[in-house]
Each structure stands twice: as structure tokens, then as C-alpha cells.
């Protein structure tokens, strides 16, 4: 992704964003499929369908060298930032070819070469790391920002306020992005807090803070560029992006706790459909878009084959990477027991 100029006028930008969003959407569809085929390792798969504009919009403001962390619903962000969908899918499948060699899975995917400091299965767990990464960026004058992505649920984790306070105190190039899909598992945002104007909670700590509606990716692009640019210039930022979690919390959750009307209303704000309509209105043909979608479909189909064909990690990799290469590996229980029994 390269940085856009944030203008609503550019059709080619929009096409780029649409493509990215469609890739996320299709990838997530395939994740569900992998799961249904019993080939996903993790029992916990959180799809970002409905949140594509957040991922694509914010990533549009990022540059080489920027770093970020994500929450448990981070596939879309990573993909929008340039991940290899094969290695993503096979990581989700717990395979040796995955980004983390099958150890991390969906909730612990990471890629240092893209600045992805890691997804996190702890709500709020990845937030303070960006303060550290931003500190280093500032110290080394790299011009980089560090961005924490998290959900509306994490707005109720104390560590967020500590981190925002530190970022503000030290004028760090850090950005806190709340993807407000309205739900944290079965809890609607207004059941978790009385304070639903989320950006106010960042403002009060001294951050540049905004809320943007995620329906139109171009709005997100604009807001994200403003906030990220501000952070690069030394004022940490916060951006809440309103969207909707189209499906259940996890792949299996049927969301019985919310109404069909609400879901219909939420899904009506589909950022992928919306940008497609915009493109059509601006004169891109249906055929062209269908062809693009089909190409993406094929690309993402291939990730499933890739995953299924990939090897499981070898059993002896189990003891690897607890400590750095060159350090002795932890001794397996069996070795210890055998030594004990050998003495007899």
C-alpha cells in the first residue's frame, strides 16, 4: 500500500481500496471455509467481515518502517498491510508454512518484515507495545509511527489509558485505532460503557482524536491520514471507526443476543458494497469489477489448497524458540525422566 492523498475524487485510489477490501472479505470467507473443512487449527477464528474499510483505510496512511499490533480480529489489517495470504492461511491452519510455523495461529500472527509486531489474544494486550515501538521510532528519528488496532471492547481495559497517557506525555508517534464494530462478544458497546463517544476518552488525555463512520472507505482514508500524519508530527492520535461485526464473535457464534433487524441495519452499511457502488457510479463497469472479484476469489481459493497441502510442524520444533537460537532448548520431560530412571 502506498499513501494516498486522501482525496475523495480519485477513482483509481478508490479502485485500489476496493481491491484491498475485497481481498480481505474474500480471505475471511475462505477462513470460514477452512474451518468448516476441519482444517483450521485454532478453535477461535474471528472474522473481520464488515470492518474492511478500517483495515484498508488506516493501512493507506502507513509507510514502510511503520509498525503495528492488532487484536484477535486482525486478519484484515495484516492483509491490507501486505501480508502473503498463503502464509496467513496456513498459519491459521497451524501449519509449518505459516508465518509463525504453526505455533501462533489466527490470534498470534506476526511478521517483523512488515512491521507487524503481532496479533494478540489478550484484549488490550498489544496496546502498550506501540508506545515502546513509537518511543524507539522517535529516539531513532525514523519518521515511523506505531499503530495499535483494537476493538471497542478494549476501550474498557485500563492499560489503554495508561498507554495513551504515556504517548501523550512523551509526544510519541503512536496511534490508537479502535475498530468499533459495536459488539464485544455478546456485549453491545452501550452495555459496556456509558461513554460511547469513544474519541472523547482519548482527547481528554491529550491525543488528537476523531470518530469516523466506516461506511465509506474514503472517509476512513481521510481521517486516518489526518491522525497518522499528526502522530508522525509528534502528536499521538486516536481514531474510532464505526462499523459493524457482520457475523458472530467467533466462527460458530450465531449471535442469538442481537436482533435480525439490528443485523440487517448493520450489514446494510457494507463498506465493500458501498465502494463498489461508488465505482460503478463513477463509471467502472460491472464486468470489470466482477472480473476483479473473480481473480481475488481464485487467489484466495489457492490459500486453502496451500494450507491443506502444507506440512504440520515437526514435533521437535516444539522446544525451539522458547529462547533464542544458540541457547539450549528446554529439556523434554521424557529426557528428564529417562535420566532419573536410568540411574536405578
Amino acid at each position, binding site marked *: 500500500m502506498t499513501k494516498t492523498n486522501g482525496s475523495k475524487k480519485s477513482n483509481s485510489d478508490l479502485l485500489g481500496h476496493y481491491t484491498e477490501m475485497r481481498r480481505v472479505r474474500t480471505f475471511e470467507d475462505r477462513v470460514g471455509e477452512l474451518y468448516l473443512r476441519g482444517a483450521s487449527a485454532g478453535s477461535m477464528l474471528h472474522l473481520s467481515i464488515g470492518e474492511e474499510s478500517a483495515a484498508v483505510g488506516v493501512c493507506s496512511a502507513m509507510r514502510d518502517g511503520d509498525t503495528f499490533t492488532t487484536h484477535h480480529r486482525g486478519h484484515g489489517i495484516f492483509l491490507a498491510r501486505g501480508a502473503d495470504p498463503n502464509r496467513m492461511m496456513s498459519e491459521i491452519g*497451524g501449519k509449518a508454512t505459516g508465518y509463525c510455523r504453526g505455533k501462533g*495461529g489466527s*490470534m498470534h500472527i506476526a511478521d517483523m518484515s512488515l512491521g507487524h509486531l503481532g496479533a494478540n489474544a489478550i484484549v*488490550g494486550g498489544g496496546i502498550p507495545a506501540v508506545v515502546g515501538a513509537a518511543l524507539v521510532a522517535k529516539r531513532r528519528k525514523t519518521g515511523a509511527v506505531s499503530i495499535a488496532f483494537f476493538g471497542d471492547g478494549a476501550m474498557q481495559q485500563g492499560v489503554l489509558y495508561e498507554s495513551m497517557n504515556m504517548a501523550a506525555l512523551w509526544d510519541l508517534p503512536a496511534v490508537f485505532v479502535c475498530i468499533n464494530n459495536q459488539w464485544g*462478544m455478546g456485549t453491545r458497546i452501550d452495555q459496556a460503557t456509558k461513554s460511547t463517544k469513544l474519541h472523547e476518552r482519548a482527547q481528554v488525555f491529550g491525543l488528537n482524536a476523531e470518530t469516523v463512520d466506516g461506511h465509506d472507505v474514503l472517509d476512513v482514508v481521510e481521517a486516518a491520514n489526518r491522525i497518522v500524519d499528526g502522530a508522525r508530527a509528534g502528536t499521538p492520535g486516536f481514531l474510532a471507526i464505526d462499523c459493524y461485526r457482520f457475523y458472530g464473535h467467533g466462527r460458530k457464534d450465531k449471535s442469538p443476543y442481537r436482533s435480525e433487524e439490528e443485523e440487517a441495519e448493520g450489514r446494510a452499511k457494507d463498506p465493500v458494497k458501498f465502494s463498489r457502488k461508488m465505482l460503478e457510479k463513477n463509471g467502472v463497469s460491472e464486468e470489470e469489477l466482477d472480473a476483479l472479484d473473480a481473480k481475488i476469489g481464485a487467489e484466495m481459493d489457492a490459500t486453502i489448497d496451500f494450507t491443506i497441502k502444507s506440512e*504440520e510442524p515437526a*514435533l521437535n*520444533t*516444539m522446544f525451539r524458540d522458547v529462547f533464542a537460537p544458540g541457547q539450549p532448548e528446554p529439556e523434554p520431560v521424557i529426557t528428564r525422566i529417562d535420566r532419573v530412571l536410568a540411574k*536405578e
Partner: protein
Amino acid sequence: MPKLAYRDALRQALIDSMREDPDIFVIGEEVGRYGGAYGVTKGLIEEFGAERLIDTPISEPSIVGTAVGAAMAGMRPVVELMYVDFIGMTMDQLCNQAAKIRYMFGGQIGVPMVLRTQGGTGRSAGAQHSQSLEAYVMHTPGLRLAMPATVYDAYHLLRQALTQPDPVVFIEHKSLYAMTEDVDLTTPPPKWGKAVVRRQGKDLVIVTYSRQVHHVMKAAEELSKVGIEVTVIDLRTLNPLDFDTIRAEVEKVGKAMVVSEGVMTSGVAAELSARITEECFDFLEEPVIRVAGEDIPISVSIELEKNSVPTTKFVVETARKLLA
């Protein structure tokens, strides 16, 4: 006898205790409308209402702290911590506050709360959702610790925990929720703090708890086929620890193994091993063998996960080697 699932026995215990004691309430993430991430509190909100099934924001430190304050103010909160892996963010409230309040304040007041949570492997949930962290709790003075292995114990230990005057950490096992048993809950339970001998044998005593009871029982069956008879002790509670039962059995047999899903180094198995050696040294023909989780994080890969903790096969093989 009705077939009952571990999950449903826990729910029944909550229902029965909440009916008896109006001061009990449940507080935690998704405990009310959602019915609990593992379904233990499903439907409870209909009988007891949102006042007694309190859905919280995702604020673990403050949830536990709220329970501490409510317990001090005279009620009996049951916190559901969705995964024991999240205990790290609550350990100040749990270990510096709940565990120490009675002592620091010279016995003025206690903190009769129950922190229900679940741990262990089996769902390919990765390094931050699969741990067995009971050793942190067992190492903290002032906390009780219960870890039921059976449907019957799930019910009765939780019932008993809900009458304790001190904070109880109650760790369920994620791989047991769907397990069913033919069970008569009306049979009177052993006293709180008592271990149970699940099987008697003359060749080896295996001390274990939580899900590993099942691995070990299966191992014992297999071993029996090759003529090795194993005594299996299910501890049920790690604090109180029923050492009398362990001592009695180990002294009879002279060989002991401990099995724990938690990481081996400085874990529960270490405590059990050290104590057995201390108290039964003259009776031991062999060193106590520790079978425990590997000193590594848990992988999401199904194969790696499975082999990171004791398996039935591993217990069988180790017992055979020991008795060879």
C-alpha cells in the same frame, strides 16, 4: 441415574447455591445474556435476573477488585474469569488484595469470593488461551484452590466453595465441559479438602487432579492389562491439600508418580514430589516421578499442543519404565 455434563453440573451447583443464598451473585464477562463463554451460566439470568448475573465490561483487574469489595461488604461474588490465562492482569487484586486482606487487617474480615475460571489445553487455542496456571495460585498464601475432574466433583466442589469463608480459585478444565457422567448428585460428597482414591493398586501411586485424572485412569486401565496395578489419587483441591491420603497410599505402595498439566519447572508437580519425598522418604523405593507439562508455551498446532502436556500414552510408558 441421569447423564449429566460437567458444564451442566457446574450450572446446577450455581443454581442450587444461588437459591439457598441470596447473597451469591455472578459477575464477569458474558455471564448473563450470553451465558458464559463455555456455557456454564446459560439460562441463569432468566431465573436470577441481571442483578445476580452481572455482565461486565472487559476490565479484568477491576472485575476482581469489585468482587473483593463486594465480598468485604457482605455478599458472596462468583467471578467468572473467562480464561485462567487472563489471571496475569488480575494478580494484584487476587494475590495482593483478596488473598491478604484477612491477614493484613488482623482478622477483621475475610473475602469470601469464588473466582471461577478454566484452563488447560485441548482446543488449539494457542499460547494465551491454553495454560494451566494453578501453581501461581497454590504458591499464594490466603487462596484456596479447587480443580474438579469429575461431573460429581464439579457440582459438589463448587457447592462447597460457595460456603467457604476465604477466597477460592476454582479452575475448571476446558476439555471437560462436554464430558458426561451417570451421576447421582444426592450422594453425600467427601468433605471439602479431601482427596479421593479413584482406584486402588499395589504397584504404583499416581497423584493427579483435573483433566489428568482421566488420562491417568485410562492409563491405569491399560497398565492393568499388563499386570500393573495403580492407585490413582484425585486431589480435588490443591489448597487445602489432603496430604494424609497421599501419605497413606504412598506408604502402602512405595512408588509414586505425580501428573500435572501445568509446566513442570516450579509447578504443582514439584510441590507434590517434594512433599511426598519429605514425608515418605523411608517408604520410597524409587524417586517420585514427575510427569508434567513441558517447559514451553502451548502451540496452536494441534499436534504440538497435544504433546506439550501429559498424554495417557506418556503416563503408561513412564509407569512401565518405572516398574520395569
